């Protein structure tokens, strides 16, 4: 008998057939199966909270940006009272995209097709030739506005979901919020987007990028080998910096905290415990931070969070389902260490294509010179032309294609590098903690979160 709460594909395959809990394997078929893709749009992208940008992109009343929530275009607007609205950018009359610009400022958004007009909060104003009532009498005007998403601002980041009754944003972050706060809520004024995102397409399924964003450490050693070989990161040996602590949750979120002392000779003294926070910040501050920001950090973070941020900052990781977080260092030949802050969303564009959307950010309170340097080096290392990430973008299309083979679809992706080291007794933070060399646990948790949503009733 069919279990109706279990998601089943047309040939009888279940999600649980594809994701093997016992052996921590995922069948390659799960990557680019078109039938799964349709379910993902409804059960993953139709249900979770999704990152859409930063409020600094729309500072003034009337400002707007247009973005994608999964496959749905949305209009994001700043209201007169300063709040932000996220709504479907689809005309309730005949389905035309209401706003066709990427950004701008408008009190009223008028559809160019038949002229239906909407306030920037989405309320229907009216249609041309009001007396003739293009919109009829059958539905009241209140029902003819743009479909509203549920939105939330977190550290200025704009999130939204179509799941109006689902978990709150804080519940969605769960215990990982303690760590994310160290990145997004650590200064008085918070982060700002340094411009609109870079956008480009990769002929790869969104999951190839997203399972990697769940703190895949091993790929750094091989795919990004040039960092040691050419850029001389870690004096040519990337292995040392892969020792640290990975934190994660069953919601599929994760971060890798990397001890500064493992990365930089200058920071060897961090281990002794004799240095003050001020001294440490003067030697190697966390990416995006300057030593002048210490009072702000003290105001916004607990002593435990602050200690961890300074000694072992989270540097890479993800937020389920499709966010990559990069708060990374770029050491310069002259000894200077530049810190970058960037977030990516990997937006599904069909089973075989994703849009890579790269936001580059900096602390609002950082000096202008610091912001400009961070921006310039973020462009050089990450995103479109980023010397690190251009190698990633060449990998994912291959996996997307191999996953279609009659034989290869049954090959499994293996997440069998399991952490067996217990957490340090003095580890200050919550969530699932994986101590030592990078392992596969965080990525496996990503698949568990995916499995949970895909099996949930629609």
């Amino acid at each position, binding site marked *: 008998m069919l279990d109706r709460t279990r998601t089943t594909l047309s040939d009888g395959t279940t999600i649980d057939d594809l994701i093997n809990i016992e052996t921590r394997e995922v069948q390659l078929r799960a990557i680019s199966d078109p039938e799964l893709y349709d379910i993902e749009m409804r059960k993953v992208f139709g249900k979770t909270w999704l990152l859409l940008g930063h409020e600094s992109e729309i500072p003034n009343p009337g400002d707007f940006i247009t973005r994608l929530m999964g496959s749905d275009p949305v209009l994001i607007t700043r209201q007169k009272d300063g709040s932000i609205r996220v709504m479907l950018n689809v005309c309730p009359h005949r389905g035309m995209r209401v706003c066709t610009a990427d950004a701008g400022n408008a009190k009223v958004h008028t559809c160019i097709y038949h002229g239906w007009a909407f306030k920037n909060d989405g309320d229907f104003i009216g249609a041309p030739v009001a007396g003739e009532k293009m919109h009829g009498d059958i539905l009241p005007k209140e029902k003819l506005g743009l479909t509203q998403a549920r939105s939330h601002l977190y550290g200025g980041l704009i999130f939204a979901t179509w799941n109006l009754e689902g978990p709150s944003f804080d519940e969605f972050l769960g215990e990982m919020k303690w760590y994310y706060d160290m990145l997004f809520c650590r200064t008085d004024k918070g982060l700002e987007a340094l411009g609109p995102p870079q956008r480009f397409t990769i002929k790869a399924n969104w999951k190839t990028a997203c399972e990697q964003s769940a703190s895949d450490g091993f790929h750094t050693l091989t795919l990004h080998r040039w960092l040691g070989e050419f850029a001389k990161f870690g004096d040519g040996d990337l292995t040392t910096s892969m020792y640290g602590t990975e934190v994660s949750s069953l919601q599929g979120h994760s971060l890798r905290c990397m001890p500064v002392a493992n990365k930089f000779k200058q920071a060897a003294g961090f281990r002794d415990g004799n240095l003050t926070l001020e001294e440490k910040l003067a030697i190697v501050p966390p990416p995006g931070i300057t030593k002048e920001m210490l009072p702000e950090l003290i105001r916004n973070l607990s002593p435990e969070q602050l200690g961890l941020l300074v000694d072992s900052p989270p540097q890479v990781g993800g937020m389920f389902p499709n966010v990559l977080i990069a708060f990374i260092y770029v050491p310069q030949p002259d000894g200077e260490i530049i810190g970058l802050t960037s977030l990516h969303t990997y937006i599904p564009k069909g089973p075989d294509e994703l849009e890579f959307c790269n936001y580059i950010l900096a602390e609002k309170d950082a000096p202008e010179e610091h912001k400009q340097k961070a921006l310039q080096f973020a462009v050089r290392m990450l995103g*479109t032309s980023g010397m690190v990430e251009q190698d990633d973008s060449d990998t994912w299309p*291959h996996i997307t294609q191999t996953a279609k083979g009659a034989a290869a679809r049954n090959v499994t992706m293996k997440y069998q590098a399991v952490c067996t080291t217990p957490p340090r007794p003095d580890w200050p933070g919550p969530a699932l903690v994986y101590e030592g060399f990078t392992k596969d646990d965080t990525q496996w948790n990503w698949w568990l979160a995916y499995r949970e949503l895909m099996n949930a009733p629609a």
Partner: protein
Amino acid sequence: MTMNAVIPTDVSVASDAPFRPNRVPVGSPAYNEITEFLYEEAWLLDEIRLAEWVARLDVDLRYTCPVRQTRPLHQHAQSIVRTVMHFDETYASIRGRVGRITDTRSAWAEDPPSRTRRLVTNILVDSTDDPDEFEVKSYLLCSRSRFEETNLLFLSCVRHDLLRRYDDGIKLARREIIVDQTVLGFPNLAIFL
């Protein structure tokens, strides 16, 4: 429709300069010299002779590629975004990018390399106050093929260059690449435009 509606006279996105300020005529010796430089540059890049390409860059090089956005016509200039860009380079950073490709065996984005074809056309040259410096516009259509993919990827752009003439040849001192796509169809910019 009435034909006397006010249409902005200049919707050029890259510059407010008059259209024909100091045109160097097509076919003149200076024009030909510059055209040859751009053709040779395309050849060197397509042949992946990157060290020879770098030798033609001036040490004060600025090499940028703004992000594009869709904006209404009356905001056309704002379709070019010069904050976050796709490339934001200097001579040193370009040398670093080239070194990554030529001095390692792990620059996977271009190893194996793309097969590219840079078609350079519509070259317009303007003289400047300095007799040895020229402002040059050129169209570039870059096709790219990787692995067994039969559909070529394309990127089209206009390049606004500052070229400087030395005794031993021309060097590229400034290039702003204005791409036509808001969402690039290339999976990365691991190649130069």
